[in-house]
């Protein structure tokens, strides 16, 4: 079943042509929805996302550089998810694709969850802002980076809320390349079998991974159908539409009886035209001048 939350949540057939490098690009599209003025909350989230993207660019300009492409693709997902959970101690966002730590730190700082500015300390000695996040960072509960573990952490968290009679969510944010890990499917099987309906799995479907494109290395056809076959509800959404994402995370899961998979179509390097959709944006180290230039054009 596909959950249609609002008009910004689209089916894959409408969305995939918008995504560079994805099979189906260039095929016919449905008529666009009439433009609507974004609500004030969405405007706030967009501004946060822009702030976070600038911080990510700054972290790419540190001596270590950072996973730029995946941090920019997941920024809007994190901004929306963290906005949902920031004031809800029963809900937890787990960035399972921990290599996007720069994106997480930036989004947490933009949201106000992380009080210390990560930019001056990213990757630096004697600071906690490592290239993959751990629980010594303010606001981070689980260690991630070895791919696959964030999904079962979030599952356990969601189950703990259910056992406690609370309504919090466990939100796991995974990369699409990460779905090549067997542990995530092991976890999805358990989640469906236990009917942990307050688990939300978000796939940052940017189409890229370390050595190239997911479609070239290990394609994932019929991904929504796979999740549905596992016993998930599924929703496919523009992963850069913070309003649509926020609406999904706001959906009351109390009456649901299956976990939810959100397939969020994104663009690697989103917002930074020189690198958008390019596999080479996976890990980037730049100098201060380029960072300044990119921060002027990022959107």
């Amino acid at each position, binding site marked *: 079943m596909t959950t249609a939350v609002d008009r910004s949540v689209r089916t894959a057939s409408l969305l995939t042509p918008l995504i560079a490098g994805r099979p189906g690009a260039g095929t016919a599209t449905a008529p666009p929805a009439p433009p609507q003025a974004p609500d004030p909350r969405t405007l706030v989230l967009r501004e946060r996302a822009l702030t976070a993207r600038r911080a990510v660019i700054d972290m790419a300009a540190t001596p270590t550089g950072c996973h730029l492409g995946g941090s920019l693709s997941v920024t809007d997902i994190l901004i929306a998810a963290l906005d949902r959970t920031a004031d809800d101690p029963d809900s*937890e966002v787990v960035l399972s694709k921990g290599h996007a730590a720069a994106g997480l730190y930036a989004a947490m700082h933009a949201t106000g969850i992380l009080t210390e500015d990560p930019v001056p300390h990213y990757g630096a000695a004697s600071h906690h802002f490592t290239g993959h996040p*751990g*629980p010594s960072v303010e606001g981070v*509960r*689980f*260690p991630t980076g*070895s791919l*696959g*573990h964030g*999904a*079962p*952490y*979030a*599952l*356990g*968290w*969601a*189950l*703990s*809320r259910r*056992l*406690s009679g609370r309504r919090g969510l*466990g939100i796991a944010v995974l990369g699409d390349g990460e779905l090549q890990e067997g*542990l995530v499917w*092991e*976890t999805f*099987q*358990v989640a469906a*079998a*236990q009917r942990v309906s307050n688990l939300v799995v978000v796939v940052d479907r940017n189409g890229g991974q370390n050595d190239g494109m997911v479609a070239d290395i290990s394609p994932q056809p019929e991904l929504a159908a796979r999740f549905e076959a596992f016993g998930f509800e599924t929703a496919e959404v523009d992963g850069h539409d913070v309003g649509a994402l926020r609406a999904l995370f706001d959906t009351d899961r109390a009456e649901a009886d299956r976990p939810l998979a959100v397939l969020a179509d994104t663009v690697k390097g989103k917002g930074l035209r020189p690198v958008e959709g390019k596999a080479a944006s996976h890990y980037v180290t730049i100098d201060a001048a380029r960072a300044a230039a990119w921060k002027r054009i990022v959107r």
Partner: protein
Amino acid sequence: MTLAGRAAYRDELTQIAEYDPRILCLEADLGGKGHPFAVKHPDRFFNVGIAEGAMVDMAAGLAEGGYRPFVSTFAPFAVLRAAESMKLALGYLGAGITVVAPYAGVSGGWFGTTHHCLEDFAVVRAIPGVTVAAPYGEAEMRAVVRRAAVTGEPHYIRTGRNAAPLSLPWVGPEPPVVNWDVHGAEPDRTCLVSVGEVGTELCLAVRRSLPTLPHAHLCYLDQPHLERAAAELAEHYDRFVVVEEHRQAGGIASALALLLPGREVSSVNAGESWPVHGGSHEQVLDELGLNEAAVWAALAPHEVPPHGAPATPLEQEDTE
């Protein structure tokens, strides 16, 4: 009659859960039908299926949510298949998870190499912050499970299959760092150091033949406990023979040798070969060279058996 380690674990945890609602029990399809915890507390029992890595990671989420999860599956699957989950969840995160691992060593007998685990101490002891225990008998198992439940700290508990030996007595609420078994023992002799069910069984067998040998039984085996044990051992003896159902690499003997500089530490262990044949637990141990004769060989030339090296059989297991 006493219970085997895994049966004692299940019974003790079921009892503790009566008064501690934080206790959860997770199994990866090897808990058996009619698990007492499932019968008594069905809302807190989860058979997650054959999903060991996910089970340990899920337990981390449950622990962070305020619960005290106990997870159990056979030792090779817990420690080796889910090794990274244990490192991250029990070690790095320090989540209050207890992993109970039956079928350790070659207690699976004829089940074969895939179901044996002679490497668990090497792996788990290398993860800082995890209390490692190899209880001998029902009373020790119950005490270790209570400790894990009360402290809420990460624990790894190794046990066998169906062996149900009688625990050594001790004084106090939990097994001491060194449980001295020295009735009739003499000073200036070689001290037997026993680890786990088989190691303890073999040391007791040797002691029956030569009661003048001192015997130190160790239940807790993580580095902080071993450091305290080594200090206590060094106060009393200079020569030690450590007996354990584990490979030499990463075993307890090698750890004690580093902690006891200037002392003589010998190891009786399961060696480096693969247990590829069937047979009972005892027969597989024999094939690996882990038997009473091996203990006597390690004791020589300082200690010799009174009438040659006897071959006292291990306690007979049932076949359930």
